């Protein structure tokens, strides 16, 4: 049936059968307008994924302004022209029917998980005015310490806003991630790096980290390359994980005892003089503290480590010798796994750092190296701000009790609830929750309790979160598919590469970026910090053009986004000078630690929770390969692959407890309890239960993920800063998996 093109005026003129109804039919022009020229039909755009930090390059096929297909970007160092399952499903995030669309405010002052907030839509103007007013009032009445920002410090203009109003209390999830590694590396090798040169490594030791299941392609492809080139991989993990499958040797180590094995490995390498003499003698402080170092590690024999960990002494000794002899060797430390899992995380990352130093692979092929990157100037470099006000006030997360954590800009998720409820009750008057959910905290019920005490809460996110139940104002955020940015590679950076991030579609509904919010709140609360050199308001587009130009990527952003990718191949020149604690050498023994509540050399400490009569089993958590933290469960494609979580048990343990596949099981720890169906597998230790993180949250109203699963965190104790000090947890590990439980049929 062919229809002829009608004239716009035909539709807006008087029809044949109108019987009045001027306003009714007049309303047509409120919602429709003349059609523009036909939109470009099919188009390919380059952008960068935003689901996880390596930000693989994307080639997007667009059809009539809609995202049709996402695939990888040839020439991209991260992903190498491919994407993982999450990245491939990216369009579902932009097109999630539940995504936050308009700013909202509550009209019902009563707050609770099951209380109807009485949402009404407001304009961005009203939302921002309200937030600025509430925050301003809190500061003038109670001081800057009364504001709590639960957010990362990026983008840099957001950090600028927080700095400009003197925010004291900002917390982020880094204590559950890589904080301890960043803290320790500052004093051992000069800084945390994401660059692990697996491709050129010949011996890779993986403590705990299910690196392949995280599907950070840059790492997975690196490991697989290593395998293709005959490298040996040793994996310590209580679970026969996806990574274990790729390992040549796998040890189902007792949870939380990897530190013992790492200490024993150091003992073998040092006592048998197997370390890379050239590197150690030239570039480290080993010589200066040699006696102390040798003496310290003597006690940590492989036999002793076997007692603690269950890993045979023979294996530990042999692996240590192989690691030293058959290099380049690398022991990566990353994110949640082992930096943050257990209370001995700080000691563990120090030990790992020492192993890499002894292997002589710091900033060397096959080892952990520092990124060679293009410097993309920050907003503070382009528009220098006036001096920021000093940050005056009490730290709700207690990080001031941990000198090394205090030096770091991060804040502690795991002590925030305790801070709000016990240490400083009533101090926090206003909160801005950005792109996090309460599920991301250990012991979420306690964090809900804490949230309920805060009089004013603003929540910004892409999706409905449990936190929204306590929000006074909700701000709808853009997804990574709707924003512009420059992404300098820092996970694989033997030479520089920058990839563009460009909006594939204009921000949907009334979503805005956090950069926009930073600017708008800045204009209202700290105008002097948000003007350019001509005294005009900073413009985000101009800022991006300036960044692009000054980084040497092109005249402006529009020009660079045509190219999409900039690569500068250059030879890799290994460092011969390391910027560590004012010196130029890597440090094995860290003299500065003694004055900062830490030990100069790692000592053995057990994990916080040990099996007892009341709680006999280890509690392990993981994030499924197809999900990302707790933000992807509503994505229909990913949901279908992994819709909910289960209590994963070894059949031996299950039969002891008389539990069958699919049967409901209750898992209880000293802080909480969850119920979920059992799933049996031979891949996990028979003294443990494993639960996937990221479920059991969200409103039942969510189209796809609503009401599914159990919150793994309900069983994980949070902590106080004092506890961390007492336990020697100087690097701020969140103990995100440090729990023991009992298990019973329901």
């Amino acid at each position, binding site marked *: 049936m062919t229809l002829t093109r009608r004239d716009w005026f035909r539709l807006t003129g008087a029809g044949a059968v109108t019987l009045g109804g001027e306003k009714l039919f007049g309303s047509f022009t409120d919602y429709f307008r003349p059609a523009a020229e036909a939109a470009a039909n099919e188009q390919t755009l380059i952008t960068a994924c935003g689901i996880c930090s390596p930000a693989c390059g994307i080639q997007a096929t667009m059809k009539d302004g809609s995202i049709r*297909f*996402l*695939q*990888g970007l040839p020439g991209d160092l991260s*992903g*190498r022209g*491919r*994407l*993982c*399952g*999450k*990245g*491939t*499903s990216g*369009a579902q995030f932009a097109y999630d029917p539940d995504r936050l669309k308009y700013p909202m405010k509550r009209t019902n002052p009563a707050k609770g998980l099951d209380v109807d907030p009485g949402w009404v839509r407001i304009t961005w103007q009203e939302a921002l005015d309200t937030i600025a007013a509430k925050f301003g009032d809190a500061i003038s009445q109670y001081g800057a310490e009364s504001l709590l920002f639960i957010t990362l410090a990026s983008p840099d203009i957001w950090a600028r806003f927080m700095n400009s109003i003197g925010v004291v209390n900002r917390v982020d999830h880094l204590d559950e991630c890589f904080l301890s590694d960043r803290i320790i590396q500052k004093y051992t090798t000069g800084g945390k790096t994401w660059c692990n040169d697996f491709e050129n490594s010949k011996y890779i030791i993986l403590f705990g980290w299910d690196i*392949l*299941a995280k*599907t950070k*392609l840059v790492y*997975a*492809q690196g490991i*697989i390359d290593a*395998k*293709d*080139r*005959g490298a*040996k991989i040793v994996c310590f993990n209580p679970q*026969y994980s*996806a990574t274990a*499958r*790729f390992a*040549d040797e*796998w040890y*189902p180590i007792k949870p939380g005892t990897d530190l013992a094995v790492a200490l024993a490995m150091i003992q073998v390498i040092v006592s048998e003089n197997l370390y890379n003499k050239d590197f150690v003698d030239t570039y480290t402080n080993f010589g200066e503290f040699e006696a102390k170092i040798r003496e310290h590690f003597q006690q940590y024999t492989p036999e002793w480590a076997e007692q603690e960990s269950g890993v045979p002494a023979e294996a530990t000794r042999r692996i240590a010798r192989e690691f030293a002899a058959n290099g380049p060797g690398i022991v990566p430390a990353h994110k949640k796994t082992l930096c943050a899992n257990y209370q001995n995380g700080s000691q563990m990352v120090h030990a790992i750092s020492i192993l890499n130093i002894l292997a002589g692979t710091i900033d060397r092929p096959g080892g952990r190296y520092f990124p060679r990157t293009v410097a993309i100037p920050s907003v503070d470099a382009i528009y220098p701000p006036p001096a920021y006000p000093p940050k005056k006030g009490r730290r709700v997360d207690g990080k001031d009790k941990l000198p090394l954590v205090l030096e770091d800009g991060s804040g502690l998720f795991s002590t925030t609830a305790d801070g709000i409820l016990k240490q400083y009750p009533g101090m926090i008057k206003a909160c801005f929750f950005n792109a996090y959910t309460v599920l991301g905290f250990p012991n979420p019920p306690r964090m809900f309790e804490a949230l309920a005490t805060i009089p004013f809460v603003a929540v910004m996110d892409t999706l409905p979160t449990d936190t929204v139940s306590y929000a006074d104002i909700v701000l709808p955020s853009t997804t990574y598919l709707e924003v512009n940015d420059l992404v300098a590679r820092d996970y694989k950076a033997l030479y520089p590469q920058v990839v563009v991030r460009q909006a594939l579609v204009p921000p949907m509904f009334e979503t805005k970026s956090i950069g926009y919010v930073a600017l708008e709140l800045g204009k209202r609360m700290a105008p002097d910090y948000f003007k350019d050199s001509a005294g005009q308001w900073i413009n985000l587009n101009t800022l991006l053009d300036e960044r692009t130009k000054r980084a040497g990527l092109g005249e402006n952003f529009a020009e660079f986004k045509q190219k999409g990718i900039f690569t500068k191949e250059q030879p890799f020149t290994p460092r011969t000078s390391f910027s560590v604690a004012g010196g130029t050498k890597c440090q094995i023994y860290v003299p500065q630690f003694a004055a900062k509540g830490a030990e100069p050399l790692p000592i053995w400490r057990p994990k916080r929770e040990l099996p007892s009569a009341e709680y006999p089993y280890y509690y392990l958590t993981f994030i499924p*390969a*197809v999900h990302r933290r707790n933000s992807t469960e509503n994505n*229909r*494609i*990913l*949901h*279908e*692959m992994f819709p909910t979580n289960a209590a994963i048990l*070894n059949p*031996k343990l299950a039969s002891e407890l008389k539990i069958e596949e699919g049967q409901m099981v209750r898992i209880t720890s000293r802080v909480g309890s969850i119920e979920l169906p059992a799933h049996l*597998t*031979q*891949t*996990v*230790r*028979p003294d443990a239960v494993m639960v996937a993180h990221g479920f059991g949250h969200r409103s039942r109203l969510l189209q*796809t993920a609503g009401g599914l699963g159990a919150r793994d965190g309900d069983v994980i104790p949070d902590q106080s800063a004092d506890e961390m000090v007492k336990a020697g947890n100087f690097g701020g590990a969140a103990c995100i998996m440090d729990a023991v439980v009992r298990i019973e049929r329901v």
Partner: protein
Amino acid sequence: MAKYGWLLDPKRCIECRACEAACKQWNGVETGIGVRYRLVHVQEAGAFPAVRVQALSLACNHCDNAWCMKVCPVKAITRRPDGVVLIDQSRCVSCRQCEKFCPYQVPTFNEHTRKMEKCTMCADRIDQGLQPACATLCPTEALKWGLWEDIRSQGVDRVAGFTNPVYTKPNIRFITSGWPGK
């Protein structure tokens, strides 16, 4: 002889499911009703700690002797000259015989459309000179697609958990050689 086939190297699979996601996204396969053209099958064997796990990404094998084609009473399933086997939904009468007879459980009943569906080897992409969506995304070369004349002499024709190929002659090969040894 079919023109195209799959080459699977299970040891390289990291279970990222980019292959599944790409298929869903490209073909607009409905989610949530159990219709999956491509699926990563994870099988475990042995007992802790001597446990082994294998991940096989499988879709339709566009068999040379496709039983689905043979048993369809209304000839809704046909083979293109290049060997790609397709179900014509407009002819399908939902008798579900193909579902019963496929040794690889490939044709799937869609409870909403009331028709059978399966992997099309992204025939529309092939016709444009592109690879099927799944192979376009696989980040580790666990799943490859290419000319059958190149693939058929590689690897072996079956692995544990894959029905004996002698019946329907699926156009797939498996690499079972290990990583370069030490």
